[in-house]
């Protein structure tokens, strides 16, 4: 596997990060089996799958939290082994976890530099350079589109989208070449999701490789260059942009039939509503044995 290649002629020739046929088992449970995935510089690869498809396990292998039981990982074509998240970080792979990447009770600048604190002084007088931390955090947040007046503000006072933004800005500042975004939009409203999706695009435009994990096809389709589908721990194939539309993606993710059913139901309801037909729903309150005044 150690095929020594000459330096890649152009970015994008060799995948920045690859998973080659990786498997992970937890006891008798097959979390991931024989899945391959790659991301190149200046590309967004959307990893799609329903809940429980194994998306989290796969990215935990890519980010050094788990080691694969079978298969291997490669960075720029070179096989690597990550024993700890630190190893992945050092290889330029930064993961932004859904809700786990920032500390709500720490300030913005302290969050920004957690684990990578700038210091000044020497020996026992080496100390956290809070002025530099505040300055850099403010600049980087501004570059990415959020004007933070007070970097001493606790992150708990930021919105979900702003927290994601902080984590993304931090990853890029510390030299990430691959950005793994774990369900970044799943807990966000429409407007905030748009902000995060825009960050993914601008990271791609700056030449980073982005792995975007989601179960939301509407979010994936507009931004993805390639799409890797996971179903029940196994690969459902990788597709290029334009090869698939929303329905096909849903079908591949395994939720197709349920979704069609839901759509038929909703359409029927809408038709009846339009015709002025009484919609046969169970009146709230009566069936539950609640009093009539509970509705308001």
């Amino acid at each position, binding site marked *: 596997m150690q095929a020594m290649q000459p330096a890649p002629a152009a970015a994008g020739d060799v995948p920045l990060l690859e998973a080659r046929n990786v498997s992970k088992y937890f006891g008798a449970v097959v979390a991931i089996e024989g899945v391959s995935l790659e991301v190149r510089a200046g590309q967004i690869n959307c990893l799609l799958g329903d809940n429980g498809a194994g998306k989290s396990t796969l990215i935990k292998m890519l*980010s050094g*939290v788990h080691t694969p039981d079978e298969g291997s990982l490669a960075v720029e074509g070179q096989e690597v082994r990550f024993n700890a*998240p*630190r190893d992945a*970080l050092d290889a330029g792979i930064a*993961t932004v*976890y859904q809700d*786990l*990447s*920032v*500390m*709500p*009770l*720490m300030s913005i600048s*302290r969050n920004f*530099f*957690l*684990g*990578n*604190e700038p*210091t000044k002084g020497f020996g026992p007088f*080496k*100390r*956290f350079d*809070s002025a530099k931390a505040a300055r850099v955090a403010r600049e980087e947040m*501004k*570059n*990415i*589109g*959020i*004007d*933070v*007046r*007070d970097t001493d*503000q*606790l992150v*708990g*006072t930021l*919105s979900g*989208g*702003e927290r994601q933004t902080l984590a993304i800005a931090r990853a890029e500042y510390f030299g990430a070449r691959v950005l793994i975004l774990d369900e970044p939009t799943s807990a966000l409203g429409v407007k905030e999701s*748009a902000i995060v*999706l*825009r960050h993914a*695009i*601008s990271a791609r*435009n700056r030449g980073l490789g982005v792995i975007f994990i989601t179960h939301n096809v509407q979010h994936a389709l*507009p*931004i993805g260059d390639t799409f890797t589908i996971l179903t029940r721990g196994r690969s459902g194939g990788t597709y290029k942009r334009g090869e698939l539309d929303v329905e096909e993606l849903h079908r591949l993710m395994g939720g197709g039939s349920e979704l069609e059913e839901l759509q038929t139901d909703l359409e029927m309801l809408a038709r009846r509503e339009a015709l002025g037909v009484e919609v046969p729903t169970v009146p709230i309150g009566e069936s539950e044995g609640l009093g009539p005044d509970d509705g308001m």
Partner: protein
Amino acid sequence: MTLTQASGATDPAPPSDRLRRVSVTSRLLGRPAAGALIITVIVWVFFAMLSLAVGADVFYSAEGTLIYLDVAAQVGIVGTAVALLMIAGEFDLSIGSLIGFAGIVIGICVTTYGMPVWAGILISLVLTTLLGVINGFIVVRTGLPSFIVTLATLFIIRGATQALTAQITQITYIPIAPDKIASDPIAGLFNWSIGNFKVSILWWILLAAIGAYILGRTRFGNWITGVGGSPSAARNLGVPVARVKIMLFAGTAFSAAILAAVQSMTFFSSDVLRGQGYELRAITTAVIGGCLLTGGYGSVAGAAIGALALGMAQIGIVFASVNADWYLVALGTLLLVAVVLNNWIRRRFAGLR
């Protein structure tokens, strides 16, 4: 592409319109130590008025102040390390038994083995800190709540100290010859005093200053808060979580040994039962000081001020000639009011959702 970044990246940042200017008062109240400061002022006013009512002026005299400062210092010496550990999301309930253990080590070294006092103190510091490392190691390795692990080691260390001391010396209270202490080169570090001004007060301030410096000004301090905020996220960002926790457990044990040295040098003795109840009182000072039980937030200055409130309450009651049994009632009330106040301040002024 449905999403373009036409003006996105350089927008004059819409989210900032959700930030409003806040007054200096609000900002000060947003500090974790604010509640402790308010509480301490209230406690002082309360006992000053109580003293006034019963016609005893000793509480607000210099002499009375030095007396309650000494009492505050006793718990404050261990309070800083306990607060740091709590900010990292862990407890050390074994600290009381560590104080007893550390004192007994000094006593046995000096009396049974005839060592000089300084050697006894040094050995005690090393052995006790080692027990702290073991505490931390068990917590990190088993992944069990430190509340349970250190409750177990509390029993084990207290029991072993009693059993071994009884076996070695046939007594559980070891007097140390005052002339041996008086002639020792370092004993003065622990029992020096001018009138009612005891060196313990300096230890309290020194340890709090070191703790505040570590927490606020060093990388390690940032790691402490990060580890308490979310161990898994901290680990993912490359923070050596296990090492941070073990070092903090070592820190609480070390401060227990310092307190034990102060006590045995001051009282010319060591006693297996010393330090009982300190674990909960130290946690109380940390909570009054604004530390969250769940970790990730707190202040060393707050804990030091919390110790002051505790000392005032304990001595204020005695000075006011109220039955000292009421001390625990005052302590409990103090704790409850402090937690409610701290919670309110955190919501109101730190702007947390």
